């Protein structure tokens, strides 16, 4: 790792620690990280939209130069004038007086999206899930096999329980019927199923989240090793004492801020 890369990594390590400082409380370092990332992310996204959206969609390959040019458009796909104009109608929002015109492109946007959603969601969410529920059960292995038969997920009983759970949970979602009597009882089974499912899903996610933290620890550890030229089997040929200087600078910052906060806390306790 050459020195400039190391400096960048040091900056990344600083931002990592600054973001973690949020766990204690909102503080100047978190504010720095937060405000930098907001601006840079907005700029990044704008650039992506420009290069990967605007240019290929509207600014048709200059090399293919058509006969006429207008508004970045050429004659190869003149019909793209329509969305370009609609897009520019959005800019009427800059004016107080003509702001209402921007409702037209917004209405188109929402109309097209709603239209796409109706059959697509019906197919993907309702039809397909319904068809999956209509599968034939595993009668040959109804009560499960092996030592842990009661927890055999491929048994017919488990498959049947899934169907019962689906029906009960769907009944819980009824809006126009009071949850009383038998109906209420089934709805209760439904919400229990939902809660068990949510609990399991919560517990299952813990591992993935801890992994993310392990990754960040590895990043910080790798940076520390780099600062002392201790990473890998081949020593860094560009290594100099400056690597350590920057390591200690950041370490000092962390320790200094921690000490400041502790002293402040102790003082506020005394008074």
């Amino acid at each position, binding site marked *: 790792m050459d020195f400039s890369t190391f400096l960048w990594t040091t900056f990344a390590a600083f931002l990592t620690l600054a973001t973690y400082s949020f766990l204690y409380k909102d503080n100047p370092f978190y504010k720095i990280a937060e405000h930098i990332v907001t601006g840079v992310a907005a700029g990044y996204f704008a650039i992506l939209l420009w290069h990967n959206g605007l240019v290929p969609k509207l600014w048709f390959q200059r090399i293919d130069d058509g006969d006429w040019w207008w508004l970045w458009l050429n004659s190869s796909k003149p019909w793209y004038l329509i969305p370009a104009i609609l897009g520019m109608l959005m800019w009427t929002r800059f004016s107080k007086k003509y702001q209402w015109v921007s409702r037209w492109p917004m209405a188109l946007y929402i109309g097209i999206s709603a239209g796409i959603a109706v059959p697509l969601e019906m197919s993907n969410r309702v039809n397909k899930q319904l068809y999956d529920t209509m*599968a*034939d059960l595993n009668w040959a292995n109804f009560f499960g096999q092996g030592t842990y038969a009661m927890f055999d997920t491929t048994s017919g009983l488990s498959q049947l329980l899934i169907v019962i759970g689906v029906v009960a949970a*769907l009944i819980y979602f009824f*809006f126009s019927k009071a949850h009383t009597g038998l109906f209420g009882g089934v709805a209760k089974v439904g919400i229990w199923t939902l809660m068990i499912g949510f609990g399991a899903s919560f517990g299952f996610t813990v591992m993935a989240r801890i992994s993310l933290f392990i990754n960040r620890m590895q990043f910080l550890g790798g940076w520390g090793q780099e600062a002392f030229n201790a990473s890998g089997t081949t020593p860094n040929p560009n290594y100099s004492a400056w690597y350590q200087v920057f390591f200690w600078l950041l370490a000092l910052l962390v320790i200094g801020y921690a000490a400041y906060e502790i002293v402040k806390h102790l003082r506020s306790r005394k008074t």
Partner: protein
Amino acid sequence: MKLKLFVVSLVVLLSFSIAFAQEDTLTVPPIPPDSALLPAAVTGLVAKDTDNDHGHAITLKWQPSADDGAGRQSVAMYEVFRWVPDLMTRIPALRDTLEYLKLRTGDGWSPPEPGSRTDSIHNVFASLDDAQLEERKESLEQTISQAIRDLPAAHAAYPEDGDWQQVAVAPAGSATAADVGTKEKDTPDYLPDYSDFYYRVDAVTADPAIRTASEIVGPVQSYGQWFNKGRLAVSVFVLIFGLLTIFFVQHARRGADLYVRPMAGIEAVDDAIGRATEMGRPILYVLGLGTADMIATIASFTILGRVARRVAEYQTKLIVPAYEPVVMAVAQEVVKTAYYDAGRPDDYDEDIVFFVTSLQFAYVAAVNGLMLRELPATNVYMGKFFAESLLLAETGAVAGSIQIAGTDEIAQIPFFIVACDYTLIGEELYAASAYLGREPILLGSLKAQDWAKAGVIALAVAGLALSNLAVAYDWSWASSIVDFFRVVD
């Protein structure tokens, strides 16, 4: 003039010769004479236009070879061949030449590396000046588009001027394959509609040189359909559901009294706005990470409209950080109208709804900071949420806010349930706007949703019974009923 004609024809000739030079990779390996090892050929080969598609594809079906999984068991795969006219084979090379000419006449061109493919093209054109290159480029463009137009005619000329090319492979044991091309005329995979195609299928052993070809079938043409039969069940569902909605909405309009069960999360919204007013602290409304084309976000807009109207009436402060510019624009319109409807247009400020940034964790970082600085009395999260759900909700809990959440993103519901005070689960998000508005028309559509759910439950139970009976008693009619509900994409 004559010179010009001569030069143009020379260029065309040259590009054709390049095309021919590259053809050797495309030929079929010769079939060896040792016939004792040859596998049995496939039989009953049928080629048909692929159904329910936009055209540009042919489906082939056959009976597997006698040596596939039985007999000598020597077949490892099937290779599908289509007869391709020379004209079609030539187009990619012409395109390479055109690409070269475009680069050459454009900015920042540098000579290709010696020995590369482009270099062989370059050698042909090296000595020409810009005007000549430009001219050739144009003539070549015309040649290519003419060639694409001539493709159906060239296919009709079977078996003149063409050769067999492998277009698909299928592992042993399969009895069907599809030759899927694209509709893009400027890609090498372009397959012209309404052209006569001829196919054959080779049974190939593990040694690719030992193979047996089937009979040739054809001509067959590809074309697009006007109705996707695989989506028939979806169309029935959409139609019935649409009619149900219209029926119940009309029913409600005529003044029917519709009951809806109470929902804690919805009632909390009113209390929360009152609480914020008492405390003199703002309300934070997060529309989620959805773009305005997601229905969850559209549902969130309608909820925002109701919340904003009440907020305007109570004269509390509202903060709406938006994730996406279109979402921001629509939300501004929603909030503005809400303030006008509440009779407080003067309280409306353009910066109630503002854009933050369009990347997930940058947005979260900013909103988290906002929460700890503004200390909102209530946070409302409605819409599409991903991994940031818990980041937002836990920070909101630190800030001491009452939190109401609603999302249809299944993976995030557990986190909202754990970290928020009230959570609308899945479908409840879509019902919330009707609940908040309490307008009979909207409640009517809830009734339609309930009937649809009842229908789904009935169908699920009936379908389950039918499909199990169909297996047990071998009832083909029952399984065909169940099959109706299958969606084929």
